């Protein structure tokens, strides 16, 4: 059976194509010149260049972190390309100005960049290598005062907002990868929802790494002002390449009083081949701050891709009665490694957090949950509930749990539940005996295992996530 389990995981990565497009690239290497060149290409104001340079100087004093339960060859940061943009003759005036090759690439990905979006009701910003190639629905959103554009544009058109919030949740000195990102970030998405406005549609960004040896360092900043609501979706793919590619993104979320931000990710970066060659190193810092009372930040992630995933979407629960949530499905197969989880930092009174983590390991994959629940001395009445379940498929994979709990207020309640199970051959046989194929049986069992997380995803994303899970695990049972 275990050899049969292996057969189910082996399906081709269907987003592995490369688009042949002329690119404007800054040569490999990282120094002040690189940072100045990026900033100049983007016509940035002096304050932002200064901020980037401070981050770079800080970064040069830092060491790459190795506390994660992941293994890889050293990364040569001087051998990376830090900026690559599709070359266009003139600035994009409308979606029709987008390079047809780029449009074709997004069509292959199933990302609607034009009219289909009107039907889909999803506003999409697409980041191809380093720059944002177009934002749909902008006018409709603008009527409500919602700003949804690339971060580069926001720096030009809404500099006060960017300057007020950039780096307030993830400072440039935060950690090795966040500092690197702060120095060289190329583009990303910016969202601002004004007071009392409920964003009427899901906002979505699609990230794509195309160029070889290029790192993607996007930076996303989302602000929900007092009483506002926004739900944001992020999807990612990359071509198949034999060498590893670095992805070090930063996402900052800010929820003011009574505001809610919901952030969902389906991460399907190229995972490397069956022998573990190539694939994306996904070293990402995601953090939200519940700055105001009664605010809420909810992270939902489905991580199926990347050779290595290192990310901990976290929430700083500063406002009284604020709520942080983390729902995660992480799947590893072949030689994939994931060290992922969350941090919930309870600072305000009566703050609550809920963590549901589902880890699935197949092939020789290695999956670690790492979580920190911190309750500060002033966080009277704080509550946390953590549920952390692992499922093993086959005999050569691994599942690990590293929970850290620090409680500084004795009125707090913290609960942690964990379980580990193997996918049951008896379960598979039971479904087969009812006429369901082995592959569909595995998908059904795994989807059932992940149900508590999938139900948090917006509908269209939930279906995609379920399919992706089926594809990722195909061949893991045979």
């Amino acid at each position, binding site marked *: 059976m275990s050899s049969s389990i292996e057969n189910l995981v082996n399906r081709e990565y269907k987003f592995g194509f490369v688009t042949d497009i002329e690119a404007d690239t800054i040569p490999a290497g990282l120094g002040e010149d690189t940072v100045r060149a990026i900033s100049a290409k983007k016509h940035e104001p002096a304050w932002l260049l200064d901020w980037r340079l401070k981050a770079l100087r800080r970064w040069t004093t830092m060491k790459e972190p190795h506390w994660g339960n992941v293994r890889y060859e050293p990364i040569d940061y001087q051998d990376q390309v830090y900026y690559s943009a599709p070359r266009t003759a003139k600035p994009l005036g409308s979606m029709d100005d987008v390079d047809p090759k780029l449009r074709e690439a997004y069509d292959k990905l199933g990302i609607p960049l034009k009219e289909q979006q009107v039907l889909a009701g999803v506003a999409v910003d697409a980041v191809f290598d380093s720059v944002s190639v177009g934002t749909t629905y902008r006018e409709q959103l603008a009527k409500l005062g919602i700003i949804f554009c690339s971060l580069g544009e926001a720096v030009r058109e809404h500099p006060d907002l960017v300057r007020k919030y950039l780096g307030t949740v993830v400072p440039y000195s935060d950690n090795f990868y966040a500092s690197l990102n702060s120095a060289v970030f190329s583009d990303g998405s910016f969202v601002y929802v004004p007071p009392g406005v409920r964003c009427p549609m899901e906002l979505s960004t699609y990230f794509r790494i195309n160029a070889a040896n290029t790192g993607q360092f996007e930076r996303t900043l989302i602000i929900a002002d007092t009483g506002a609501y926004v739900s944001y979706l992020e999807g990612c793919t990359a071509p198949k390449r034999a060498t590893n590619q670095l992805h070090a993104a930063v996402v900052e979320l800010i929820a003011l009083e009574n505001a809610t931000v919901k952030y969902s990710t389906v991460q399907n970066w190229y995972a490397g081949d069956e022998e573990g060659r190539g694939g994306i190193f996904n070293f990402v810092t995601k953090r939200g701050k519940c700055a105001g009372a009664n605010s809420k930040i909810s992270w939902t992630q489905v991580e199926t891709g990347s050779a290595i995933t290192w990310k901990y979407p976290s929430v700083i629960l500063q406002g009284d009665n604020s709520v942080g949530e983390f729902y995660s499905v992480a799947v590893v197969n072949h030689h994939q490694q994931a060290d992922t989880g969350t941090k919930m930092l309870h600072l305000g009174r009566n703050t609550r957090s809920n963590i549901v983590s589902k880890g699935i390991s197949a092939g020789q994959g290695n999956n670690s949950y790492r979580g920190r629940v911190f309750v500060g001395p002033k966080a009277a009445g704080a509550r946390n509930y953590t549920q952390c379940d692992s499922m093993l498929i086959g005999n050569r994979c691994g599942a690990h749990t590293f929970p850290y709990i620090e409680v500084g207020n004795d009125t707090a309640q913290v609960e942690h539940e964990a379980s580990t199970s193997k996918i049951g*051959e008896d379960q598979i*046989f039971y479904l087969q*005996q009812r*006429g369901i194929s082995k592959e569909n049986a595995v998908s059904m069992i795994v989807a*059932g*295992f992940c149900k*508590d997380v999938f139900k948090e995803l917006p509908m269209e994303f939930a279906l995609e996530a379920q399919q992706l899970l089926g594809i990722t695990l195909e061949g893991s049972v045979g």
Partner: protein
Amino acid sequence: MLDIRDLQAKVGGGNDILKGINLAVKAGEIHAVMGPNGSGKSTLAQVLAGNPAYEVTGGSATFDGRDLFGMQPEERAQAGLFMAFQYPVEIPGVSNAYFLRSAYNEIRKAHGEEEVDPLEFLDIMERNLALVDMDQSMLQRSVNAGFSGGEKKRNEILQMAVLRPRLAILDETDSGLDIDALRIVAEGVNKLRRPDNATIVVTHYQRLLNHIVPDFVHVLSAGRIVKSGGKELALELEEKGYDWLETPAEAVA
């Protein structure tokens, strides 16, 4: 319908548990397979259903003319072979309704029929729920998760009612059932009886056969059928136990 010849089988790397079973089942018939613990009666059910933990080491079986052992478990199910499990398996997070509709549609697809949508399927379910005295709430519950022993067995019969198999094999469905649940299960099976389907009831005790009356009774001992007869054989076993059969086993076989 089912023709088993000289079937030998074992579990994992052990010795043969079945040592030459011959059995023919025709449409419209109910066969009871009885025997003491360890005689191989559950093994027979598992082998026919295709449980990969069991290995066929000799003999053959055809199901409606097809080589049963050349078919995957799901192909056997799609061809109309159903086994009610002695220990129904829990599948957390998968609703009974979704699971049953998937199974129903897989079988329809295999017969070149169109799949039914969730609303049509709800109608089908409503007609069948009453048969096993269950209400709609169980459709949204996860498959067998947190079900009582009786609920699990009734859920097996519900699946059987919905999937309408050619051949149903009940593997010790009576074990662990109280008398009321036993009656509900047996009535369900009786109502599902048709001239074109057949049932094999695997059981240790005669009591289920008070409710489901068999046409034939076979007694298994040490991997062989040592005696076959009509329904009165079951009563005789009830009275005398299994011991009296074991000595002359070779002679009878």
